[in-house]
């Protein structure tokens, strides 16, 4: 694997008395999809927010970008480096069309203050084509799009800034089977274009489908870093829950012996 584009080491974050992250290490390379796994409250979203500049990390850790130490103190710092974040609540304007949403806050102008709709629509078309995303008309309000299409628009929107690293917080949580597949396709395409992708997901099937590596957090600490191809489902679950004997293994054992399962109740 090539050198990491983004590397964090010894990152801690405390909220009052809660230590959400302690001494976490993390890295992502160009052309790599890293799944960030962990139980509820493990600190995944907090780590993503630290990288995105939404939270400042405690002093002590280091963040480096292409080998150079950097500090990320605000969302615009992260954006300037080339880090794009897609949060779970997508934040699209339902009343505006696709082009308007893609360029919101970043409109192309001709005379001072007036919109260059043609330039924006061509660029939107080009961008979506490059992602092999087929959407019938770019001039329909996004309210009329399916959940998967909306997720794709949100991702495409973050790509206009030409990021090097894209972080997605549970991008498939609310999607059906077909729409999940669309989003996973898009993630693979981002990887093929050489971007580093950080994917938070509770869905192990999605993770196995697209991720190259799985970084597991448990109670705010690193709990393992696995190459997906060589790691079994059980090993990852054990790392997430912190024990070989965990609710997931117990449940699958019960399923193997139906009699025991009924007795449990």
């Amino acid at each position: 694997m090539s050198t990491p584009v983004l590397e964090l080491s010894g990152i801690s974050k405390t909220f009052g008395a809660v230590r959400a992250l302690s001494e976490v290490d993390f890295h992502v390379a160009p052309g790599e999809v890293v799944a960030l796994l962990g139980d509820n409250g493990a600190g995944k979203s907090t780590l993503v927010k630290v990288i995105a500049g939404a939270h400042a990390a405690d002093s002590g850790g280091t963040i480096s970008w292409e080998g150079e130490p950097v500090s990320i103190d605000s969302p615009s710092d992260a954006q300037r480096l080339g880090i794009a974040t897609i949060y779970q609540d997508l934040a699209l304007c339902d009343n505006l069309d696709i082009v308007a949403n893609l360029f919101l806050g970043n409109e192309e102008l001709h005379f001072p203050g007036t919109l260059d709709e043609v330039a924006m629509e061509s660029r939107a078309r080009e961008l979506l084509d490059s992602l092999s995303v087929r959407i019938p008309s770019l001039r329909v309000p996004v309210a009329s799009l399916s959940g998967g299409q909306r997720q794709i628009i949100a991702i495409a929107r973050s790509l206009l800034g030409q990021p090097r690293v894209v972080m997605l917080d549970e991008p498939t949580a609310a999607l059906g089977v077909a729409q999940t597949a669309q989003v996973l396709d898009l993630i693979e395409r981002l990887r093929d274009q050489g971007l580093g992708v950080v994917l938070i997901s509770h869905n192990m099937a999605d993770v196995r489908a697209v991720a190259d590596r799985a970084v597991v957090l448990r109670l705010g600490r690193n709990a393992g870093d696995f190459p997906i191809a060589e790691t079994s489902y059980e090993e990852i679950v054990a790392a997430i829950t912190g024990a070989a004997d965990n609710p997931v293994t117990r449940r699958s054992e019960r399923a193997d012996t139906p009699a025991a399962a009924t007795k449990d109740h």
Partner: protein
Amino acid sequence: MTQQTHLTSEAPDTSTAPAPADPRLLTTAASPRGWLQALKRNLRGGELGPLPVIVGLILIAVVFQSMNDRFLSPQNLSNLTVQIAAIGLMTTGVIMVLLLGEIDLSVGSVAGLSAGVLGVLAVRYGVNEWLAILIAVVAGLLVGLLHGVIFAKVGVPAFVVTLAGLLGWQGLHLFLMGQDGSINTSPNGPIALLTQTYFVPLVGWGVVAIALACYLVSVLAAEAKRRRAGLPCKKAPEVALRTLLLALPLAGGAWVLNQYKGVPLAFLIFVGFVVSLDLVLRKTRYGRMVYAVGGNAEAARRAGINVDLIRVSVFAIASALASLGGIMLVSRNFAASVSTGAGEELMMAIAAAVIGGTSLFGGRGNAYSALLGGLVLGAISSGLLLLQMDTSVRFMITAAVLLVAVILDAASRRGRKTHARGGA
């Protein structure tokens, strides 16, 4: 570093040739039949556009004309256009606030306050009338800034801020007027001329010709640019049809108004503001931001839009437009009185916006609602006046029309929701 350029410049070869239209995209044939089908599709999807209002206007015209044949006379229609100008200007401001998904209950009181300021300055203190008009508008702007800051920065709901404004500015208005119940303005100064000026026929025709030429040139230029960029564009017959649909009411209006005294200045001012507001809303970055904040303020904030600034500016503009409405009221009555703006103006301004098709739910609507809604309400009151009906009847009919408009708004919102999903 190479991967930086992949996203946009090294798109797959599909982008070099214009991409074939998506098979799921229903195309509109360039024929009357195709247009009719597209219209039906839009209606079913909850995109009603101006159609209900236009149908309503035609209905009103037919009913009143059959009851009194003076209704469609040039004199009555000419008076109608002057009558709607004042409240129409207030409505344009209300529309901006509604687009944000907020409400401004103070427009009547602000109009009254500005009328009072104008009367007191111009008559009691003998200030130059133009200067007095300017000060009255600036007063409105400052009032709106105050509303906007309290709403956006302090976080008090707009409903409450402007309710306080409704009371407070009316109070200040009464205070300014002092002992005088009414201050008569000069019958031939600039203030009076605002609503007393009519243009010779040539001016009316000239305005129509220029408007049509501007429309046609800008549409043709835009479509040519789209074609060069390989984007879907309107075919020539469609452009011709749209121009014709615009030319008919413009030419008809000019012809009727020229039969009486000519095109009134007051109406031109009103329409001028409507057109300018429409251009600002649709063509500028500022307008895009207004729609974005009205659609999803959180999304707008994350996109880097200064949401507070947009909110403050919209409330300021709305109050300034309300002031202009107040000035028109003074002009028409040759007087600023304690009752200016204190009556039905607020209700009618909000009703006109909603009847014209601007949604109460924010983010949907356009400037032309002020013109269409104003015409509907103006036509109803003018017709009932001809029939010598009482205000009581007018209020009830207006209420019914308003209810129909709100029901259409809610229903079309639901239509959009059910037709929204399942695209892919």
